[in-house]
């Protein structure tokens, strides 16, 4: 079956889901879609630039708290504004943080990103008066395309209009990332990942391109983060904690970071598997830890690595 066909079927499935799935499961789809957006960005760093960030939750937090701040302090509930502001803030923060981080690779990059993530976490946690501290801040129900849907019960709103809106954002995000990855820029990134010295010799500035990738990933992270807030109605510092960053990388690996849609699949499996496991036994971390270990040891290509045929839409990322 061609990749395009599968993609088409998946999309059709997603469109039809609200008529088929129970409300509870449908609401689970919302964080999946938000994580889908976030992971598209993370994977640009991970698979294409070869950088593992252990602080990506920083951008998720930036996006999520943007929604809360705009709602609480400026009375702005339009999701378009929230997403736009989140994207800009994500870009700015990523630009600054990235300037400092992209000079390093591997373990140092991971450590720096972890440190920045925890700086933001500490800030959000300690400045109780501004950010609500440990309790977090409420996120008001957004206006979609300017429409005030407050009359709808929240559950109907979430499984109806908000679901389709998020799906729209995910599709757009995926299309944009696809273009990015298949552009000359994407090619440069892969060259840098595989052989930085050669890239420099060819006139490609290694740190500059990594920086671009970092900023883009930050934007995607913030946009996804902005979508995460409304279903729960609350954002809190645990969104930014280092284990959340670790989970993001886990999702990417689970789905298979070598494939474009791998991480999105990973997000889906992670969320629904977690729900399924939690219904049976509270020790989901044990199960998930074992799964992660198994993937790392036996199947580093993740789920897509197990399914995918010879043809790789993008070359297998190293290693």
């Amino acid at each position, binding site marked *: 079956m061609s990749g395009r066909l599968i993609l088409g079927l998946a999309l059709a499935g997603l469109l039809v889901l609200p008529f088929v799935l*129970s*409300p*509870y499961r449908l*609401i*689970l789809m919302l964080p999946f879609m938000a994580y889908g957006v976030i992971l598209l960005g993370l994977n640009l760093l991970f698979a294409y630039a070869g950088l593992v960030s252990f602080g990506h939750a920083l951008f998720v937090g930036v996006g999520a708290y943007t929604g809360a701040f705009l709602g609480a302090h400026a009375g702005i509930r339009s999701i378009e504004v929230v997403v736009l502001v989140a994207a800009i803030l994500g870009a700015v923060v990523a630009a600054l943080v990235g300037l400092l981080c992209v000079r390093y690779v591997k373990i140092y990059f991971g450590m720096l990103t972890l440190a920045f993530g925890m700086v933001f976490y500490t800030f959000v*946690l*300690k400045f*109780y008066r501004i950010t*609500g*501290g*440990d*309790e*977090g801040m*409420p996120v008001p129900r957004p206006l979609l395309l300017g429409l005030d849907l407050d009359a709808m*019960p*929240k*559950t109907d709103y979430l499984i109806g209009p908000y679901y389709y809106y998020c799906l729209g954002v995910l599709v757009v995000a995926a299309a944009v990332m696809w273009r990015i990855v298949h552009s000359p820029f994407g090619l440069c990134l892969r060259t840098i990942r595989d052989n930085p010295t050669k890239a420099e010799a060819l006139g490609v500035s290694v740190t500059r391109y990594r920086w671009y990738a970092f900023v883009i990933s930050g934007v995607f992270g913030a946009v996804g983060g902005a979508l995460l807030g409304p279903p*729960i*109605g*609350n954002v*809190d510092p*645990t*969104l930014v904690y280092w284990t959340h960053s670790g989970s993001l990388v886990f999702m990417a690996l689970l789905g298979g970071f070598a494939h474009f849609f791998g991480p999105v699949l990973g997000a889906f499996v992670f969320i629904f598997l977690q729900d399924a496991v*939690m*219904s*049976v*036994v*509270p020790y*989901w971390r044990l199960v998930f830890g074992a799964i992660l270990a198994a993937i790392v040891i036996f199947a580093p290509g993740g789920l897509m690595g197990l399914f995918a045929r010879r043809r790789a839409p993008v070359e297998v990322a190293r290693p």
Partner: protein
Amino acid sequence: MATTRREFLSMVGGAAAAAGVVAAPAGARAQAKKGVPADPVKIGVMAIRAGIAAPVGAAGLRGTEWWADRINKAGGILGRKVQLVVEEESTPKDTVERYRKLILQDKVEVVLGGISTGVTLALAPVAEDLATPWLSWDGTTQKGVDETMPKPRWSFRSVDNEVEAIVAGQLTPKYFKGIKTVAGIGNDYSYGHDCWQTYQAVLKRYIPDVKFVLELFPKLGVTDFTSHIAAIQQSKADLLMCSFWSGDATIIMKQAAAVGLFKTMKGVFTTAGGVHDSLKKEFTPDGLLLGYNSMYFDDPRGSALLKQFVREYKAKYDEYPPYECDHAYFCAESYKAGVEKAYAAAGQWPSKEQVVKALEGIEVESLSGRRSWREDHIQMCSFYQGVTTHKNSYDFVTIDPVEVVSTKQSMKPAGSKLMEWIAGWKI
């Protein structure tokens, strides 16, 4: 985290489980009243299971299970057995998801529980949206009352949690003379901050020129207070006010004893009764002011119900019950009373709206005595605080004398603003 039916059975043990899960045996069915379904009534319960507040969550759950056990032995609510569906209260985000699951997936008729303010703040709007009564054990602070939920329809919330600070503030000048400087430590969220603000406001009414020399707000979950204690010693305050309500109260007491903090400083622990039997005599001095919120297990004027509960709790868990048990029991018992009252009016098992209407203003016999729901969906009860003493037969401290202050005096009336109300007191 979810608990399967299997899990729940193993937790609760034979009696309650068998009564709850198995369909009512023939004899009980014969008792089922007109218009009452035969299947068990599902009651959702949210309890903290992990982390520093786990003992408090466990207490609430045990109180609810004891209630369920009793009710089922007596035939259930209007002949319908009670079945508890337990989910974990953890972070606001996860708890909201579990709450939705309880209502959308498990189809419970009511949800009991909720302790941590952060969680109850996040839950309130969701509860309102899902149109199912939610009786919260604890967690309400002014933020919850004023900012996010001025007129709740489905949510029934705990006593304003600042009341323990108010009562402590009123009792401080009575028991500790000559207090000029005060230091405060509380958890870094609205409960800790609000309690400190409230305590300051109340104390200032009685001791106008008191100075507040230090305030510390470690995050809930910190286990090392040695540096905080050093800072407190440095401040040379006459008194330390601490609003810790979970395992960290025990830890700070221990670490304070290790440096002899309370040899030279007075101490007010507004809410540490939540973990009271972990405050062992070895490291908890006498002469501290200690709060037990709505239930004091050793109340000399306690009812027969309380005495029975304490006895059976101790026999089963080898611990003495803290006040969270009373909040939990009250919520469950008031739900039953509400259903019965609404049934009397409706002639059949009441709808959720009818139950909510019946709950407003209802009064029931709880473990600590008579308690009620105020019209604006806020709990009413009595608060127990007192001075710690070692003169007892336990290995932990108790209080003597026991001050009992009703929320009629110590909680702001419906519709008023807390600080304005305190400012308007006649001293």
